[in-house]
């Protein structure tokens, strides 16, 4: 198999005059080095670009970047998973990142990244995908911004729908809903912008291919109007799962329906919510989530429970099942936000923005409270994985 290659590589390296390498130590095959590097955090990988030229090109290669993303996203130890926090400090807004593991393990001092990223005040995080964070400016929906907090690279989209954010002047101001996801087939990160006019009940939809196109491109409009309003819209960005972006909408007969956009074909499809939930009202806060790679749907039941449904197989409505039922008696008067699932049965939910979480164990049906309070720091923006994905081009710059 690989014996011959080992010997050759070893011999070549051993004759080198570099005195820092020990003459007798075994030299690893490049395929093994590739595997080893794929387990490292981003900071180490950036340092190790300095090791030699071939390591630099390996670490920068698009294949390696993808391998690293995949490795990080399935790592049961969650070593590259991070939670976003926002520091409302004076008149700036900082994005902070802390190890998800340290929050889960309920360390008294969760570890913040040594550095933070200044975003302008009014920044609103849309979503993260493969380590790229897509955020918008609350006051001006004209641009979408991208940031990779692990490599600190950032970029901005060309202008989208040009409309100012109007507070108070109009009863039902127009707004733009966003969605961000990865087109695996074409290896492109796409942002979808849905301009919503709540009075005319119509939408206009544009798509932007990060690092590829120079402008936004029109696609067909949404078949139904999104079930959202000015107060909740920042939570109603498109939920990315199985190569689709999903929004909750109201159909013509005012029943709830999920509108799903295939991110590759850019075509819309309707998906039914669980039967019992089609007639839910705004006050019951119907919401979509993604947990453990499955689309989930939650709502408030009789002010007693929050019910969370899971669609086990994406697109198969028969696979809707009640996944979680949490009584407000256990968590206080807050509607919890499902954040993250790991080990197939531990679900982390955010109780409120100032650092209260619960971890629900699905198998044992048990609930654990986590508290992590720091003044001025709000845990919002969800989770992300550390990656080398570039906000400039597909793959790495």
């Amino acid at each position, binding site marked *: 198999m690989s*014996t011959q290659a080992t010997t050759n590589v070893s011999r070549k390296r051993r004759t080198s005059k570099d005195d820092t390498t020990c003459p007798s130590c075994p030299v690893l095959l490049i395929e093994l080095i590739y595997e080893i590097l794929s387990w490292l955090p981003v900071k180490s990988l950036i340092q190790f670009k300095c090791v030699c030229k071939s390591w630099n090109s390996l670490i920068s290669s698009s294949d390696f970047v993808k391998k690293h993303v995949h490795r990080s996203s399935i790592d049961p130890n969650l070593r590259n998973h991070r939670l976003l926090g926002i520091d409302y400090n004076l008149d700036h807004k900082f994005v902070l990142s802390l190890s998800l593991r340290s929050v889960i393990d309920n360390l008294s001092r969760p570890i913040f990244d040594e550095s933070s990223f200044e975003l302008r005040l009014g920044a609103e995080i849309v979503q993260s995908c493969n380590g790229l964070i897509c955020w918008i400016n609350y006051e001006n929906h004209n641009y979408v911004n991208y940031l990779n907090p692990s490599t600190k690279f950032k970029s901005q989209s060309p202008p989208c729908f040009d409309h100012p954010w109007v507070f108070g002047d109009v009863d039902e101001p127009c707004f733009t809903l966003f969605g961000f996801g990865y087109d695996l087939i074409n290896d492109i990160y796409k942002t979808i912008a849905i301009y919503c006019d709540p009075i005319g009940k119509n939408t206009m939809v544009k798509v932007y291919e990060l690092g590829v196109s120079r402008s936004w491109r029109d696609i067909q409009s949404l078949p139904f109007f999104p079930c959202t309003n000015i107060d909740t819209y920042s939570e109603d960005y498109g939920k990315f799962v199985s190569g689709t972006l999903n929004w909750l909408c109201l159909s013509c007969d005012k029943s709830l329906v999920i509108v799903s956009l295939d991110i590759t074909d850019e075509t819309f499809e309707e998906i039914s919510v669980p039967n019992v939930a089609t007639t839910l009202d705004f006050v019951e806060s119907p919401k979509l989530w993604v947990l453990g790679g499955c689309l989930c749907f939650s709502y408030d039941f009789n002010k007693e429970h929050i019910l969370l449904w899971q669609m086990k197989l994406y697109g198969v409505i028969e696979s809707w099942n009640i996944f979680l039922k949490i009584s407000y008696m256990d968590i206080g008067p807050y509607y919890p936000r499902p954040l993250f699932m790991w080990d197939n049965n531990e679900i982390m939910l955010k109780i409120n923005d100032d650092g209260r979480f619960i971890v629900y164990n699905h198998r044992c049906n048990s609930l654990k409270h986590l508290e992590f309070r720091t003044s001025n720091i709000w845990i919002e923006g969800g989770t992300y994985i550390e990656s080398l994905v570039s906000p400039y081009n597909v793959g790495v710059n």
Partner: protein
Amino acid sequence: MAKTPEPKRTISLKPCDGDVIEVSPMIAKQMQTIQSFIEDDSFIATTTIIPLPNVTAFQLSKIIDYLNYHSNSKAVADNVKESTKKFDEEFLKELEHDKLKELLHAANYLNVKEVLDFLCQAVADLIQDKSVKFVRKFFGVVNDYSVEEEEDIRRTHAWAFEGVEED
């Protein structure tokens, strides 16, 4: 270490040094290279001894130990996780750097994914917080950058080098 149950249902492996080691078909199956031997028509379980010229007896028994332990402890209870962690730590403690690298090659030759992943992760843990110089030495890699070129990369990503101890 693998035992020899009766009647003989084990696979015989011959490392490059030392005696034949018997492993259960369940363990052998996890080594892709052995598996392809077994699937060969000329293979007769009772008589065939599979020669492994690239693997030492020490490496083979380490790999078998790992597979044996992990196939018996698939449960997810916390105490099992704890003892598995302890086993993994002890497993690595006995391996100096060179032995670790040689074991990686053996696992790669035998194509046993579980051990390969575990060892790659162990090496990654080992080098994660180390300097570039340490990493070059560890992997026997020659620095082919000019001083200026290396400086340039360090400057571009200055933040990544903050707080790293050069040795």
